[in-house]
């Protein structure tokens, strides 16, 4: 049954046959069955999202909105969806917030360890991609993370999309999440080869805003992350097209707001009463 090829076990290789599978997906199957029968399962915090990225003349620009939802409710108006992977690699996440966070964290740690073992050589985007997609493939789409991965390494700028089932595409411009159609329409209309940094930033910000304004699942602000040979520039809340219509009530009051009617000063000695301690009882 199991044939081997050098160090690779061909039959156990992808870890999905029942004998050598490291994970049991039976419960996922059971849950989807009882959901089909009408039971309401608990809802996860989702990032109904617009995320995207473009490659330009000498780098990559990533973008994301900042809305996080729980069903129809906005759970967080200003969350961060551009995750750190390595100093030269960042990753936008859409799908279940916990899954995108856990998956990107795991790969970030693995690459950090890998750099310790390789004299601190700069991580490659393809390594991050392979780690992400093999993790997602292993869970057969049950880890719901849809990602836009971007970075700059020895081979230049890179941009990839990764789907929850573990497939990936290499593209000059990419969008993901519920607002991906709105964002893609902006890219298809405005993308040019070899754009300047400013042109690329504007295009990405416009694509995210298209999602923010036209997609229910996306909203609030625009985050950008520019990665070049020189390093990264993380522009948190690069644009805030949805300011609060009224100022939030401040809970700190100026001194003297409340009139002082009477004041008494006590020294500590007057308050604390010293008492002799009882001797401890010893024996029966």
């Amino acid at each position, binding site marked *: 049954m199991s044939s081997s090829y*050098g160090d690779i076990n061909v039959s156990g290789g992808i870890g999905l*046959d029942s004998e050598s599978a490291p994970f049991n997906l039976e419960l996922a199957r059971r849950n989807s069955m009882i959901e089909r029968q009408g039971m309401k399962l608990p809802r996860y915090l989702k990032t109904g999202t617009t995320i995207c990225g473009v490659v330009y003349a000498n780098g990559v620009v990533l973008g994301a909105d900042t809305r996080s939802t729980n069903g129809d409710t906005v759970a967080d108006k200003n969350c961060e969806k551009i995750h750190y992977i390595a100093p030269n690699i960042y990753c936008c996440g859409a799908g279940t917030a916990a899954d995108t966070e856990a998956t990107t964290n795991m790969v970030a740690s693995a690459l950090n360890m890998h750099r310790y073992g390789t004299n601190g050589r700069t991580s490659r985007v393809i390594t991050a991609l392979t780690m992400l997609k093999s993790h997602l493939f292993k869970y057969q*789409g049950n880890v719901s993370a849809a990602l836009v991965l971007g970075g700059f390494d020895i081979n230049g700028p890179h941009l990839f999309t990764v*789907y929850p089932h573990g*497939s990936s*595409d290499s593209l000059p411009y990419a969008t993901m999440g519920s607002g991906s159609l709105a964002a893609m329409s902006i890219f298809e209309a405005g993308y040019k080869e070899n754009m300047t940094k400013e042109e690329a930033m504007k295009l990405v910000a416009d694509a995210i805003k298209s999602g923010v304004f036209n997609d229910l699942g996306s909203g609030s602000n625009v985050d950008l992350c520019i990665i070049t040979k020189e390093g990264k520039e993380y522009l948190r809340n690069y644009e805030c097209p949805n300011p609060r219509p009224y100022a939030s009530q401040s809970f700190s009051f100026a001194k003297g707001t409340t009139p002082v009617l009477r004041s008494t000063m006590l020294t500590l000695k007057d308050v604390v009463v010293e008492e002799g301690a009882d001797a401890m009882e010893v024996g029966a």
Partner: protein
Amino acid sequence: MPHAVSTGTTIVAVEYAGGVVIGADSRVSTGTYISNRASDKITPLSDNAFLLRSGSAADTQLVSDYVRHMVHQHESQLQRPIDVPTVANLVMQIGYNNKNALSAAAMLVAGYDAATRQGHVYAVPIGGTMVRQKYAIDGSGSIFIYGYCDSEYKDDMTREEAESFVAEAIALAMSTDGSSGGVVRLVTVNEDGIFRRLHAGDKSVPRFGEEKDVHKDLTDKANAMQT
């Protein structure tokens, strides 16, 4: 769970007098959305062999990643380029040993062995089948071109004949199959190396029969009316 990404596809591979010509459309879809309109389904497995992918993108990418890894090991061990039948055999082995885990995906392996001066085309669907063929077609669009291919295929075509056979077959499938489209990608592998070609846009994608004639008739009529 969301729709799995699938390469609803047309793929064609043909052996000719001096090598092989392989081709694919470029459409990748998630449900009704085209998630990549210019993808490359012709994945290199070694310096001389390619995998044509159709079906689940995740499954076929995994298979090609594993086979590429094993080809590297094999070539390091033997210190010579791998044979195309061996590459096809590795794809078959993974497909056979994981037949329960991988969803139905049809893959074609094609390449040219410089040592034996021989082109090879293999159909390798998941499950463990591996059949050498003179030409092979697969993917959702292939059902529309069985007739075309059966009537147009000839043994020992020239390179030019083989390239236009493949390009026209794919263009024909793209015009009828909703899940195939975009551009036509062609790869020719022979003694002189690997040659990539691309048919993009209305002008260079071949058109066929009625569609072509109706279009010409209409433009002729329009021109006549203007003058």
